[in-house]
């Protein structure tokens, strides 16, 4: 954990004397706990600064459990992981201080959907995360500078220098408020564009309100100069009234602007989709239709082209994008498509369930392909394929309606049925049964759970 720039997130540790602040801090900074504790006590003796610092950390820093929970919850948002990286910097409305736990969030979201709470060093290599991290340190350094300045002013005042506090405090309030409002600009813009979840927006609003309140208060105190409450209240009332009036006037215009923007964006998305569909149809369907017109003489070719195009279009239209590809059923369907293209007879695949490919499944795909080839070649009509697969078990049935054949009459030297189907299945611990009558032939391939284990053990 200490070898890489990725520090453990700042969280109150369970190894505690009072609230686990010191040991958490030590873990985060990579310093010995003892040093931190001694430093804290010394700081506490220096006018109570240590006590204030301790109390502040106690309030602002979550316990390790809380951090873990928050971490585990955040990445659950499935909407554009790249976006949640940006929004990760909006924790609960954190008040004027960009609380250190922010890092926890960011690290967690950068890791995406894996949902593990413990930070891992490998994450540090992730470039975007790194960039965010450095930016965040920038904010904290700024804050630190501000605090140092305040401390300097206080010390100067203690030393007898006359500091115009009456001007400085409102000015600081204005600066602080403005920076709070501005700080969220990059975050909300990114969040607002794609991630419209209201939860984050609530935090944004709270911040905006806090920033606004600070700025208004600061300006008022500055303007009223004396700082008398009565005057301030009056001015506040007046300015609120003015602001309300401005909002009232501008609101319809702003709403219209917003709606136009939304409409334009939706239009752009539609346009992009349309262009994509047009491009796909041009590359596939139009080309095939042209081919069909040129081959109109050959019924066989036309049927084959139409089948192949239908299959392709179906795959494009109805495929579930969330599904993993390359599974067992996909491979069987691909084999069926290949046989269909090769021989021109339709091969209908119905699949129930699915399984990941193993060596045994691979053998089964090969055996199924061979069986489909035979069925299409000798059956001479459409071929029905049914596959049922679960984790430990797989069955494939290939049925045609041809004249059928007698397995014992197939010559010994014909490799197709005996080797490629029956032999192959047996070698991998499965079984193949061929049932042929005058009304058709059905090949049944089967892998019991034990068969698959055995096959894997041997390989």
């Amino acid at each position, binding site marked *: 954990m200490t070898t890489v720039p990725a520090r453990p997130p700042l969280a109150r540790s369970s190894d505690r004397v009072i609230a686990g602040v010191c040991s958490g801090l030590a873990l985060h900074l990579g310093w010995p706990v003892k040093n931190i504790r001694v430093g804290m006590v010394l700081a506490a003796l220096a006018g109570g600064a240590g006590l204030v610092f301790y109390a502040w950390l106690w309030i602002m820093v979550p316990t390790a459990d809380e951090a873990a929970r928050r971490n585990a919850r955040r990445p659950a948002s499935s909407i554009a992981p790249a976006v949640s990286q940006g929004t990760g910097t909006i924790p609960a409305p954190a008040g004027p201080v960009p609380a250190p736990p922010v890092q926890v969030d960011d690290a967690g979201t950068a890791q995406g959907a894996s949902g593990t709470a413990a930070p891992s060093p490998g994450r540090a290599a992730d470039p975007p995360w790194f960039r965010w991290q450095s930016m965040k340190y920038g904010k904290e350094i700024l804050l630190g500078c501000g605090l140092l300045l305040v401390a300097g002013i206080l010390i100067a005042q203690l030393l007898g220098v006359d500091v115009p506090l009456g001007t400085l405090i409102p000015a600081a309030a204005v600066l602080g408020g403005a920076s709070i409002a501005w700080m969220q600009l990059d975050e909300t813009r990114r969040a607002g564009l794609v991630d419209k979840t209201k939860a984050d927006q609530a935090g944004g609003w709270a911040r905006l309100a806090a920033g606004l309140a600070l700025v208004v208060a600061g300006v008022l105190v500055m303007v009223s100069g004396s700082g008398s409450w009565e005057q301030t209240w009056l001015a506040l009332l007046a300015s609120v009234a003015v602001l309300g009036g401005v909002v009232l006037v501008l609101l319809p215009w702003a709403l219209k602007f917003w709606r136009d923007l939304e409409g334009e964006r939706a239009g752009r998305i539609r346009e992009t989709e349309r262009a994509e569909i047009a491009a796909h149809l041009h590359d596939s369907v139009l080309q095939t239709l042209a081919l069909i017109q040129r081959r109109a003489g050959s019924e066989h070719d036309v049927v084959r082209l139409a089948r192949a195009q239908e299959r392709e279009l179906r795959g494009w239209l*109805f495929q579930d994008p969330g599904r993993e590809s390359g599974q067992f059923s996909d491979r069987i369907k691909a084999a069926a498509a290949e046989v269909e293209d090769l021989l021109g007879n339709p091969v209908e695949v*119905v*699949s*129930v*369930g699915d399984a990941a490919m193993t060596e045994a499944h691979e053998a089964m795909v090969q055996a199924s392909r061979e069986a489909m080839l035979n069925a299409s070649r000798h059956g001479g009509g459409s071929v*029905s394929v*049914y596959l*049922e697969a679960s984790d430990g078990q797989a069955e494939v049935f290939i049925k045609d309606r041809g004249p059928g054949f007698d397995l014992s009459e197939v010559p010994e030297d014909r490799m197709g049925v005996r080797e490629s189907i029956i032999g192959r299945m047996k070698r991998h611990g499965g079984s193949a049964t061929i049932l042929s009558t005058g009304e058709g032939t059905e090949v049944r391939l089967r892998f019991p759970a034990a068969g698959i284990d055995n096959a894997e053990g041997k390989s």
Partner: protein
Amino acid sequence: MNPSQGEPAPGNGTVRVVIVDDHAIFRSGLKADLDASIQVVGEAATVEQAVAVIAEQRPDVVLLDVHLPGGLGGGGREVIAGSAALLATTRFLALSVSDAAEDVVAVIRAGARGYVTKTISGAEITDAVFRVAGGDAVFSPRLAGFVLDAFGTAPADIADDELDKLSARELEVMRLIARGYSYKEVAKELFISIKTVETHVSAVLRKLQLSSRHELTKWAAERRLL
């Protein structure tokens, strides 16, 4: 795609049929393909036309495209809902180029007695029309596959709600249909009569239409169905 190849049609009389499809080319092609014993008494291209024609003609069977313009956008489902009063005498056979699960199951749950894809031959459609007119369900191998996928392939326990799972026998029948067996072949394989096969298939259809089972809902939701 031929669940009942080579079997005699159950009724000897003619069957009155309305074809609902928004493609005129397809309607005329289908009309030409259908057997002479099937009398096409009406055609419709939109949801509103379909509901009106069905109410006026009161056909035995409606060949219904799943995707239709007009109405509230519900397509074939909406036509069935609009003709709910006639469901006792008029049977709906869904006919579509789409074999997406949501289309198939939505129209079956609306009340259709079967589902076939448009690529099947005229003889097969004719056969399916007679079967539906006779009160049976028409399951293509693909629909059987969807049913198995949705209900799971484990047989029902006694404790389960009877609507929520398929019995062992129903599972066997569905598996054989999915494997491309005709009703006759299923009957032979399981040593039961064709009538019994039809009873099982109708029972499965009923479960598919009525089940409110948790997993079916989940399964449908995963495919953006309900």
